[in-house]
């Protein structure tokens, strides 16, 4: 394997793998075994940062790389509006940063195009693409990897892979613990974190550090718009529903966006509101997050650098969080995020949640979407004794629907534990409800 060519080609990398440094572990044995461990480690790269991650892994000496879910527009789920399933294909707006794709590739599956490109460019690396979502795959699939590196663009996908990898850990089998490295960006900001499932702080422990933007109340959108965004939300959520009910809304269809834009303009005119533009319309309905090549490069390389360190022990790895902000100079903050005993995924205690007992169950359910520590869009819930509200199957939904109008104090005791499930996740979330 290690031909003369190969050792010449990888000479810089091999230097750090064949001699210890002042910070590498005293027990570490550098040399050919370390190199072959790296070359045989099967590693998974995923998400919108996938182009950078693939390039970096290939040039870090990994030879068996798999790639999945290279990102699509984040799912938008407004109740009642049919959404087309978006596919994992190349869009023109990817070209400003996803550097493995060209104009001629638009419409092709991302994972396949990216894998073929990197295989062509970096001799001796094998890249196995899977076109689809990370949620398509089960534990057997994830069990084959040594390390999982994700630069996913939705919080749902992150929470899903986090819960899955934590659920896979079998204390009897050390191989079942898959170091999970997560990276994410938004404009000039980003973060990289290393998660050792069940051993260190996980995505769910840190959920409240990434609070969702508060949603605009429906009554504002319906009756008292003040901002151009309110008019766009009205056109998208209300006018489309009224006028084009049978037409599934497709946020990638420029004619659909154009229709919403014109409807929003009309409404804005009526209320003397300025500032509705086509681009703003697109931004609001697709929930577009600004993204640039440079931030993605920083964060993707931060994650793959940790992957190299974990796979080879040539230096200590990140413990466990690095945040980055580039608006004012270069700012990073590296710290150890806490593992929470009441984490619904990796902890064993129910998480305390203070609620107003006079709130109805429906109101409580609505708040779960916005609460930073929960962020659950379609929750169903039960106590140990009874089901409070269950969305599926329809019979059970019908049976429990009446509870929605009842007050919390009539359904649960102060301090009682409830289990909440959500179709986006495989696990139950446990909350202890404390009355205000």
């Amino acid at each position, binding site marked *: 394997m290690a031909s003369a*060519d190969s050792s010449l*080609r990888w*000479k*810089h*990398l091999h*230097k*750090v793998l064949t001699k210890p*440094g002042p*910070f590498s572990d005293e027990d570490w044995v550098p040399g050919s075994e370390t190199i072959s461990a790296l070359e045989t480690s099967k590693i998974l790269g995923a998400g919108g940062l996938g182009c950078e991650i693939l*390039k*970096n892994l290939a*040039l*870090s000496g990994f030879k068996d790389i798999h790639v999945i879910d290279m990102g699509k527009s984040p799912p938008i789920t407004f109740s009642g509006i049919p959404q087309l399933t978006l596919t994992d294909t190349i869009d*023109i*707006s990817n070209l*400003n*940063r996803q*550097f493995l794709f060209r*104009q001629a590739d638009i419409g092709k599956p991302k994972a396949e195009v990216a894998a073929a490109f990197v295989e*062509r*460019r970096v001799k001796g690396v094998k890249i196995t693409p899977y076109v689809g979502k990370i949620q398509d795959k089960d534990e057997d699939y994830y069990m084959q990897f040594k390390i999982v590196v994700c630069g996913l663009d939705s919080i749902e996908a992150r929470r899903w892979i986090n819960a899955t990898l934590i659920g896979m850990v079998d204390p009897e089998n050390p191989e079942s613990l898959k170091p999970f490295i997560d990276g994410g960006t938004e*404009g*000039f900001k980003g973060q990289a974190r290393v998660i050792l499932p069940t051993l260190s702080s996980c995505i769910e422990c840190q959920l409240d550090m990434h609070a969702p933007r508060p949603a605009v109340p429906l009554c*504002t959108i319906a009756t*008292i718009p*003040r*901002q151009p965004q309110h008019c766009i939300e009205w056109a998208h959520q209300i006018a489309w529903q009224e006028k084009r009910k049978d037409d599934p809304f497709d946020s990638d269809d420029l004619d659909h*966006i154009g229709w919403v834009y014109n409807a929003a303009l009309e409404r804005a005119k009526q*209320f*003397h509101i300025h500032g509705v*533009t*086509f*681009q703003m319309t*697109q*931004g609001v309905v697709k929930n*577009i997050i*600004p*993204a*640039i*090549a*440079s931030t*993605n*490069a*920083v964060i*993707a*390389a*931060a994650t793959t*650098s*940790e992957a*190299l360190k974990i796979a080879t022990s040539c*230096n200590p790895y990140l413990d466990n969080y*690095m945040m980055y902000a*580039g*608006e*004012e*100079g*270069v*700012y*990073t903050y*590296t710290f150890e995020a806490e593992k929470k005993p009441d984490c619904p995924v990796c902890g064993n205690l129910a998480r305390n949640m203070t609620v107003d007992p006079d709130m109805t169950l429906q109101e409580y359910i609505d708040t779960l979407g916005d609460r930073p520590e929960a962020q659950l869009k379609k929750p169903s819930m039960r106590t140990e004794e009874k089901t409070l509200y269950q969305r599926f199957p329809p019979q059970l939904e019908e049976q429990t629907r009446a509870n929605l109008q009842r007050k919390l104090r009539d359904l649960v005791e102060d301090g009682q534990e409830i289990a909440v499930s959500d179709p986006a996740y495989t696990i139950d979330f446990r909350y202890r409800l404390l009355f205000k």
Partner: protein
Amino acid sequence: MTDAFPSALTGPSSKERKYDRQLRLWAASGQKALEESRVLLVNSDGPWSNQSTGVSGVVGVETLKNLVLPGIGGFTIVDPATVTEADLGVNFFLEEQSLGKPRAAETCRLLKELNPDVEGSFQSKVWDSGSITELLRQDPGFLAQHRLVLVSGPMKRPSLDALCKAASELNIPVLYTRSVGFYSSFSLQLPPLFPIVETHPDPETTQDLRLLNPWPELAEAASRIDDLETLDDHQHGHVPYLLLLLHYLEKWKEAHNGNVPSNYKEKSEFREMVRSSARTCNPEGGEENYDEAVAAVLKSLNPFSLRSSTREIFEMEECKNPRADSADFWIIASAVREFFQQHNVLPLPGSLPDMKAQSADYVSLQNIYKSKAKKDVEEVTNIVRRIESQIGSRSGDIPEKDIEIFCKNAAHIKVIRGRSIPEIDGEAQTLKAIRNSISIPDSLIPVFIAFQALDNVVTDLQERRIPSGSIDDEVAWGAQIDRVLSALTADDQSTIDEDARERISEAIQELRRTEGGELHNISSLTGGLVAQEALKVITRQYVPLDNTCIFDGVRSRSEMYTL
């Protein structure tokens, strides 16, 4: 940012679609500046010795990738190196067929593939004596074609100094980068004064509502809600919180000899007064607009105060006495300074946060803010015109749009005082800044010191002062470490204690691990950071580095230093 896009009735052009995700950050104006700029990458300065090919230049190429993708106008690569096997293991913009060919040509070709809108050229000629200095000598107009110079180090000192000096004479910024093993460091050399208007501060910090000193139209709007008690529940629950605060402030003043609440205790009392005035007998058991008012008391009821950075700008000679050849920034700054001297406030930015209100009430309140902002811009414009006519002989009036943008951002303008690329035995301020940080245990200054020693070793190598010709020559390193340490301790032995010496020694050991070689991850990460700074310098938006960043890939940390 509201004018980020032209509000054409038609959909976006294919270019707008391609660049959509970045236009949301720097808008059409930033994109225009980017497309009108050409950058120069000096990606190596010849081999270090006959045993060593020199810098592999990965940071440089990765930086260009991050500039070509968003659509920089053009780039030039100067690189006399020939592609080797080791290049292929670390540089993504080379392929098997590139072996043995000029690296400048190959990287240029593969980078151009990324974006057909970008023009790229290269210069791969191998010069007899230090390529870049020779190039500057033979083609005096060459440097001036570029808006920014990127230099991949370590580079021998005479070449770097010549390049930085030539760029400085043309007011062209320089980014000098080094990435070796798990460490990287880069510094930005800006012109002596580098002003920025669009700094994009966090919107939370930019609100300027003038509640304690409302202008007549705003005070008048507040007085119109004098009879809050007579409003029905619906109306009462929709009075904009801003007017509520103004209303209760008047009441407070009546009871406090005309004074507004000024300290924490008074503000808390005032907040209680607002809170207790909310109606709670409605079905919701409270009122959102009152909640908003209560939440805004502590952060919004502050007298106007000028940020110290703005005050410093007003004190600068360029601002006090603009000249005919002053940049537009200084003429407008000078006019805004005069405006401030007259009114004790800056021009009103004019934006209004969203708040619970009826549509029409909100829009009319918004118009009060907008009209006042417009009036302030007019006043500043008049001062600008007067200054222009006083100083005379300028090439034309400053566009009104620029004055408007300046007024909107006046509270957050910034001027960076450019420094040259730092050297330990260079300017006194550099040495002082290094000494100040060296005893802090977590400081990354030891990494910077290690890079300084490396620069010196490379200089000696290229100038054939190291007989072995090896980058890993113990004697050479020993000598350079001594030289760097003695510069640091020149007049005071105590500047470096034992712990600091140990940290420096460890940083040097880690740096020497790859014998000058780059690791792709660290260079790619650094290329992202350097490109980010390049974008900020070129678009004149956001705030660039002042002036050195050090990244430590062992501990996954970075630090900024003004050296």
